[in-house]
């Protein structure tokens, strides 16, 4: 694990290492609040630690504890958490290859698939950097999250309200900054927009987790876009298609094979050429 880490770090470079460190800090603070809240509702001190190692998915852990604290049954808490975590299957399907080969790598790497590590991997262009970003982010977050949770469980109510620090806004901002380069692709952007509208509309009606999954109903839009691209850019030698000018937000009507010049995504996140063409 140590050599893995050293290798990952050297491949990450200073910028990406710094970005990951920042996310670690933010998630560590949220971990402190998870530990503190869990203990404050009367659950044993080791429970948040156990959950953080075996589940390792923040939102579902908070939900699990919240349902039990509200007097719900553990089975209901389990079901709700599992629903929230179902998105890890499509995440794993899209970035699975960054984990590498060998059963140990697969086992450890699978556990490290979370929102942040997926987003960091997706934001990278080359396979080697993707791998480094995934492992670097996954391992560091696992460590920081668990340290935070332990600190919170023991430290009690010191940092219970992380909203006061704006940590609740930091999490979506992290993911948004990381997916931004992928949204340069017009089709992906439109599908994501439609998906988000679906998820927002469904949230008041459905249990948590389900609305986010429902956003995948917008996926066929990508298929339509891809077939149009294929028609217009069939025999292009380099599939660097998909760098579009950003101001086209919302206009989807026609899909053209934009293969304009590359420009960089948000600094430190790398460029992902449209919908991430490796």
């Amino acid at each position, binding site marked *: 694990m140590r050599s893995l880490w050293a290798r990952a770090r050297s491949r990450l470079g200073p910028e990406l290492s710094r970005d990951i460190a920042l996310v670690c800090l933010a998630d560590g603070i949220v971990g402190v609040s998870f530990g503190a809240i869990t203990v404050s509702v009367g659950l044993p001190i080791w429970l948040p630690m156990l959950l953080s190692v075996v589940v390792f998915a923040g939102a579902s852990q908070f939900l699990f504890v919240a349902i039990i604290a509200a007097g719900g049954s553990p089975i209901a808490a389990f079901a709700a958490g599992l629903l929230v975590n179902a998105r890890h299957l499509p995440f794993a399907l899209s970035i*699975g290859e960054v984990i590498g080969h060998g059963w140990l790598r697969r086992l450890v790497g699978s556990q490290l698939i979370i929102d942040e590590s997926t987003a960091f991997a997706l934001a990278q262009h080359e396979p080697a950097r993707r791998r480094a970003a995934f492992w670097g982010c996954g391992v560091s977050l696992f460590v920081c999250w668990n340290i935070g949770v332990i600190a919170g469980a023991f430290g009690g109510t010191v940092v219970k309200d992380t909203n006061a620090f704006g940590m609740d806004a930091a999490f979506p901002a992290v993911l*948004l900054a990381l997916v931004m380069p992928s949204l340069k692709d017009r089709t992906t952007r439109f599908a994501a927009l439609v998906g988000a509208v679906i998820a927002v509309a469904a949230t008041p009606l459905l249990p948590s987790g389900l609305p986010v999954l429902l*956003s995948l109903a917008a996926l066929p839009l990508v298929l339509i876009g891809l077939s149009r691209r294929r028609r217009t850019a069939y025999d292009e030698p380099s599939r660097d298609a998909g760098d579009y000018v950003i101001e086209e937000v919302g206009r989807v009507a026609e899909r053209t094979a934009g293969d304009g010049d590359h420009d960089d995504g948000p600094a430190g996140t790398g460029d992902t050429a449209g919908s991430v063409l490796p």
Partner: protein
Amino acid sequence: MTQIVVWGVLLGVGTFGFRIAGVGLKSRLTLSERTSLLLTAASVILLVALVVTATVFDAGGFAGWARPAGVAVGGVLAWRKAPFVVVVLAAAAVAAGLRLLGVS
């Protein structure tokens, strides 16, 4: 308590099941470029839906104005290609600042 621990561990097992199933499937299938593009797009769609719902809602209800304001500032900065650190810190600072001013 035993119940809580058992179902908590099962949540971990189930979540791990989702993760390893995806990884295993991916390694076993030879996917066309089109399919991998589609899978990548699926993750992007999920992440954006997650961003938006986590921005607007808190436990099923409206999260208040401070959080969306912070995320919006972060989003504009990210779009304007500000460094990642600036994006994240600005989002947190705006949300925290607004709360300090009494905007919830």
